[in-house]
């Protein structure tokens, strides 16, 4: 099918506008991270007057960025791994078994994803505080509390995507394994999971990104010791000064790993969404 000249120009214009809209903030983030402080204090400059990597050095001492980074890394990694482990079992049950309550389970789990976070925030805050007071299990202002909270945030979508992947794996493989005498769990671990590795990796990255980017619960459920990047990055503005060059440098550093992971796996996200949307 041939493209008319009008369509070609239309496409170019739309692409240019979209690309500019997306690129300009990214460009500012990257270039400002290489600016000396006076470039971001007195008006805006498109290019650093004197490109420098100093912000990447200074950002560690202006706020305890290393501590926030470690907190975020620990919380997000544990939450992601646990979330995917739980989701694998749940998705296996939903994909391979027909049982009473299957539909109810799927709908309930997915719909919690849609509820306002603020609805859970106040009760969870009180539950965590009161649980700490009565039993001594410190969930409030602890990394454990964040891990438990975050792992449920990514759970619904992880289950949904994994069901899509598992459904796409031919059941002939299960049957062959069962003929060989494998039980359901061995079938899951030795047949289905190896065939679903890309899906599992994509879901892990998704769960990690969810925890890495969460702001609302991080702002309430953490103290100075357990603070994550989501809240910690706002510490670069002091009463007198905002160290915009350092903020941009820190933003760049904490963004690059997740963006790279997401982009590397984007076609699996598309595949997962397609599998989900077909239903």
């Amino acid at each position, binding site marked *: *099918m041939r493209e008319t000249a009008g369509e070609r120009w239309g496409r170019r214009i739309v692409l240019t506008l979209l690309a500019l809209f997306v690129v*300009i903030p990214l460009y500012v983030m990257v270039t400002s991270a290489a600016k000396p402080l006076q470039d971001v204090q007195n008006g805006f400059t498109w290019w650093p007057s004197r490109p420098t990597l100093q912000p990447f050095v200074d950002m560690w001492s202006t706020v305890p960025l290393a501590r926030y980074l470690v907190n975020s890394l620990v919380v997000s990694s544990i939450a992601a791994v646990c979330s995917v482990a739980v989701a694998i*079992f749940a998705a296996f049950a939903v994909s391979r078994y027909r049982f009473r309550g299957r539909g109810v389970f799927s709908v309930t789990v997915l719909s919690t994803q849609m509820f306002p976070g603020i609805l859970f925030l106040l009760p969870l805050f009180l*539950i965590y505080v*009161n649980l700490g007071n009565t039993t001594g299990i410190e969930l409030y202002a602890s990394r454990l509390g964040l891990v438990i909270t975050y792992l449920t945030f990514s759970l619904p979508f992880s289950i949904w995507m994994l069901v899509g992947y598992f459904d796409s794996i031919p059941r002939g493989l299960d049957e062959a394994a069962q003929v060989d005498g494998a039980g359901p769990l061995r079938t899951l671990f030795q047949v289905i999971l190896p065939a679903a590795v890309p899906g599992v990796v994509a879901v892990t990255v998704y769960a990690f990104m969810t925890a890495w980017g969460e702001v609302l619960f991080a702002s309430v459920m953490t103290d100075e010791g357990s603070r994550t990047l*989501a809240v910690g990055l706002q510490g670069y503005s002091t009463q007198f000064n905002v160290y915009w060059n350092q903020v941009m440098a820190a933003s760049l550093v904490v963004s690059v790993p997740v963006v790279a992971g997401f982009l590397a796996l984007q076609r699996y996200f598309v595949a997962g969404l397609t599998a989900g*949307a077909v239903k």
Partner: protein
Amino acid sequence: MATSTTAPGAARPDRRDARAGTPEPARRRRPRRPLLPYLLLVPAIVLELAVHVVPMAVGAWMSLLELTQFHIRDWSTAPFIGLDNYRATLDIHTAAGRELLHSFWVTLAYTLLSVGLAWLLGMAGAVVLQRPFRGRAVLRALFLTPYALPVYTAVITWSFLLQRDTGLVNHVLVDQLGLLDDRPFWLIGGNSFWSLLVVSVWRNWPFAFLCLMAGLQNVPDELYEASAIDGAGFWRRLRSVTLPLLRPVNLVLLLVLFLWTFNDFNTPYVLFGGSAPEQADLISIHIYRSSFKTWDFGSGSAMSVALLLFLLVVSAGYLLITNRRRDHA
């Protein structure tokens, strides 16, 4: 659902198979592991109960208590006051009620505009990237980047762009193009609503783009070929081929975007540093601020429950209307 592709007699209990007229294998297998699927679901169910379902029930209960700062450390002492919290916060004749109503309208306008624009940009992006050309993969990755960024780094970057004295936006508008004489404030006052909208569209449109791109992959090329041979131009093909085939994706996408945007907390919280100006006082921020400023969790919970009920009614209505249309079609 992919279940219909399973051969009858597959080694899993399947009621559909039983109905399909080959009940023997299914029935014979069923008693083997009737508990297994439930056991597999236990961790997921426990976590969902602990972090979503129980807190929701507790939240509904809290909304009936006088849960002020005096009772937060030990909530068993909070007196039961029935629907008083709802009366106090939802009555539009009081100051609190008026503020909540204002916040509701701001949120509704913000949500409709943001979802509409995000969908429009996502659709435009998906359509122009539908055919292969050199550089397509790079552009697709670029377009997805705002969605892949952690929300706080994206919003912090925008708040730098929107600074009055050191931001790019005023530099371009005032210094370079000379469109305005004064440097406007973008993060306080009336402009803050539009700033919030732009940031939210920037962040959300890649999600629409991703879903629509996935949906377009299912549209067979032959349909376009055929309609092109029939003489259909670009807009005609969009209206008669692309949009009808994307309907299932759009139905879900628009609802999800609506709910996410309506509940959006992160964008205003990071953009305005925790204190949204009145013109951009989204409902999540409003509930958060009024709960933690006054430590009155009872009325905060009442507002949250009211918000949930509103969203449930809207979602149910949306699903009913769209399903009925599908049945008539």
